[in-house]
């Protein structure tokens, strides 16, 4: 064999040996591959891989494990119910709301942060009827207004005299106890639906937004039902109340009772009609009060002074548009002269107030089913609501230049389930004084 051939053989042997060495080392150097898979490790789609947790049939041990988990869960729940979770003897729903605002006014000394009101409300069933919905329920409330005194607000029982389960039939209920009077729109609309921070002047000046102790019967006729939307609107709604007439948290100051009534007619149309949300209402309030000459009380407990209010309202509320208008006349008997009931010369003071409000919404705040979605997060439909309101009050129509007109422009921002932020700018023109008073208010209204 020539030297050349031997060299080639040796070289070849060396090369083969080196290759074998490399081959021997390779399994340790390369990452492991899935058997039968051409995709390199780390790149394969793991979402389609077999889930080992779900492999195989359920065994006796698996069942025992599930039973043990259930028993532990039951034990944990019992302990929590016993130690840390509040409970009551009857069904209980707790809610509340508060208003915190900052107000600035052109009047001196009338600026600053203000805690306007706080309300806590407890409601529930005392006896629930599943057959016809003739249930007994209760409402108890505590509230504090700008005077910072915590007082009972609502304290009444409610009973459904008529059935309340079938939406195609009329409803009839009765409330007994201290409750809000139901006169007109401004005094009865709940805070979450009122565009403006302050209610109309006539509502507070005529005592329409206050509570009183008494009994109220209310219900409706001719319900129009649109099953495609779970929508129900009665053609006629009515309310008739009998009250002490003395106000909140006070016993009756005279022998007479005040009577209040309201009838509202709703457009009898289905959900998809452009007339949905149109309502015309009329209200009255008649009672008696003590006789005053100025601030001096002439009678005490004998009433005998006329107190009456009459009102009419028109509203069109169909998201995103809204319009409300209300007119109220008040009649209060006062003594012009005299010191006793016998010698007092009396006169009726007629007062008048009216208000008009326009509002518009961008967002789904006032769509019932948009507020009721299945969500993982704490989502709420963000909604913006600008509005403008004109509010006129004349305390004595027999006198000239004593009216007050307040024009309010504002903006409401709904961003959470029970919270809204309000901005109001009011231009107040009180003809009794030479000054125009403007004010700006920013308010958070929150609840739970």
């Amino acid at each position, binding site marked *: 064999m020539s030297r050349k051939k031997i060299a080639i053989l040796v070289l070849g042997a060396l090369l083969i040996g080196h290759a074998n060495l490399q081959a021997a080392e390779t399994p340790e150097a390369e990452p492991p591959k899935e058997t039968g898979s051409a995709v390199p490790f780390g790149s394969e789609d793991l979402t389609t891989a077999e889930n080992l947790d779900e492999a195989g049939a359920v065994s006796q041990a698996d069942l025992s494990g599930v039973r043990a988990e259930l028993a532990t869960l039951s034990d944990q729940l019992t302990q929590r119910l016993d130690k840390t979770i509040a409970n009551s003897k009857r069904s209980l729903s707790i809610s509340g709301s508060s208003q915190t605002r900052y107000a600035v006014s052109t009047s001196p000394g009338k600026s600053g942060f203000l805690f306007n009101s706080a309300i806590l409300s407890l409601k529930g069933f005392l006896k629930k*009827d*599943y*057959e*016809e919905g003739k249930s007994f329920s209760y409402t108890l409330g505590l509230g504090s207004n700008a005077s910072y005194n915590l007082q009972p607000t609502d304290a009444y029982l409610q009973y459904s005299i008529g059935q309340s*389960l*079938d*939406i*195609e039939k009329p409803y009839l209920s009765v409330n007994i106890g201290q409750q809000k009077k139901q006169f007109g729109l401004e005094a009865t609309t709940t805070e979450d639906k009122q565009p403006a921070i302050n209610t109309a002047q006539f509502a507070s000046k005529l005592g329409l937004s206050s509570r009183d102790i008494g009994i109220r019967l209310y219900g409706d006729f001719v319900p129009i039902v*649109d*099953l*495609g*939307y*779970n*929508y129900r609107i009665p053609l006629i709604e009515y309310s008739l109340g009998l009250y002490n007439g003395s106000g909140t948290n006070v016993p009756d100051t005279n022998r007479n009772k005040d009577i209040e009534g309201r009838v509202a007619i709703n457009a009898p149309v*289905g*959900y*998809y009609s452009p007339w949905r949300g149109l309502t015309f209402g009329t209200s009255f309030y008649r009672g008696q009060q003590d006789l005053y000459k100025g601030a001096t009380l002439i009678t005490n407990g004998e009433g005998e002074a006329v107190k009456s209010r009459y009102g009419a309202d028109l509203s069109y509320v169909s*998201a995103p548009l809204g319009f409300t208008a209300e007119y109220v006349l008040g009649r209060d008997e006062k003594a012009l002269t005299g010191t006793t009931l016998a010698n007092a010369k009396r006169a009726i003071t007629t007062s008048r107030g009216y208000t008009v409000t326009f509002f518009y919404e961008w967002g*789904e705040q006032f*769509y*019932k*089913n*948009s507020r*009721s*979605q*299945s*969500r*993982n997060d704490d989502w709420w439909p963000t909604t913006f609501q600008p509005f403008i309101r004109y509010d006129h009050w004349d305390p004595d129509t027999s006198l000239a230049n004593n009216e007050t007109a307040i024009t309010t422009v504002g903006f409401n921002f709904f961003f959470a389930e029970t919270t809204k932020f309000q901005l109001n700018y009011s231009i107040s023109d009180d003809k009794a004084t030479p000054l125009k008073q403007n004010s700006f208010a920013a308010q958070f209204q929150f609840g739970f």
Partner: protein
Amino acid sequence: MRKWIKALPVAALLFMTVIAQAEEKPKVIRIGAGGNSLNLPKSSGATGWVDEQGLLEKEFAKDGIKIERTFYKAMGPGQNEAIASGLIDFGSAGDLVLVVGRAGGLPYKIISTSGSGGSNVYIQVNPASGIKSLKDLKGKRIGYQKGTYLHLCFNRILDAIGLSEKDIKGVNLINADAQAALATNSVDAIVSNSSRPLVDQGVAKLLFDTRKYPQFKGGPGAIFVTEAFANKYPDITKRVLKTLLKGYYWASKPENQEAIIQSQVKTGGIYKHIKADQIGDFEPTVKYDPTVTPEVLKKYQEMIDFSVKRGIIRRKFNVNELFDLRFNEPALKELGYDKYWVHK
């Protein structure tokens, strides 16, 4: 030069058409769906699978179109309100709620059924009520939810035995309240979906169900689109439908039935009831057949006529007013499903 000038208006028209075509795409496609008993924002079954796979998102990613889903706890009525308020473009709901909505003038059209199956109806009775047959329901207090397929199916059952809602004391109750009312003897019987825990507990008895009498089952639900969206974006509408049809194709495969049941359990269904509900059911290829056939149109027309007869809706209308047939057949053809779901 003259030739140039003559060509200009045509060129301008062509240019504007191209621009218009290029611009005719929505920024977002809003899809509504019914909620579930666990209030989870997810669907089950065919559409649940489409959502899980992100098929709609993948289909419209290249167009830059976002997909927005809303799950309404109020089910069909919630979607009707959303349509009335212009909040969704597509949805899927049961037959009766679509008929009621259309009767009231809602501007939507059905573009596909969500299967031929329909839902079963169960009548559970209080053992102490003395009800042994359907005719014994006369004069009894029966709880059911009005405006749902349960309401319509129950009316059909009453009609078949010569009765009407006037012959019973109907109590309008949602499912949870109906179960409670039956447990407390406040009603003698309830009409429900497959959920029957009281029967399992021995508190109530199962009197009747449509697994044995499929002619009384609920009708086929449907996928709908607003008229405005379909007319403005017909191509997009067809693409949405094609994507959803892939879900029905997947659901029609026998090997996927267990996965469908699991998805229903994850959204609040009871496994035992779901399995039992399938006894006597159609084959999956029939149950999830989305074709709008003359048979489907006939069923819907019968439903409209029956609903008018029973006072559930006031306006009688032709079924063609409820359907838009431009998309179903072409979508099935383009996917090759016309050879899969063949109708003689």
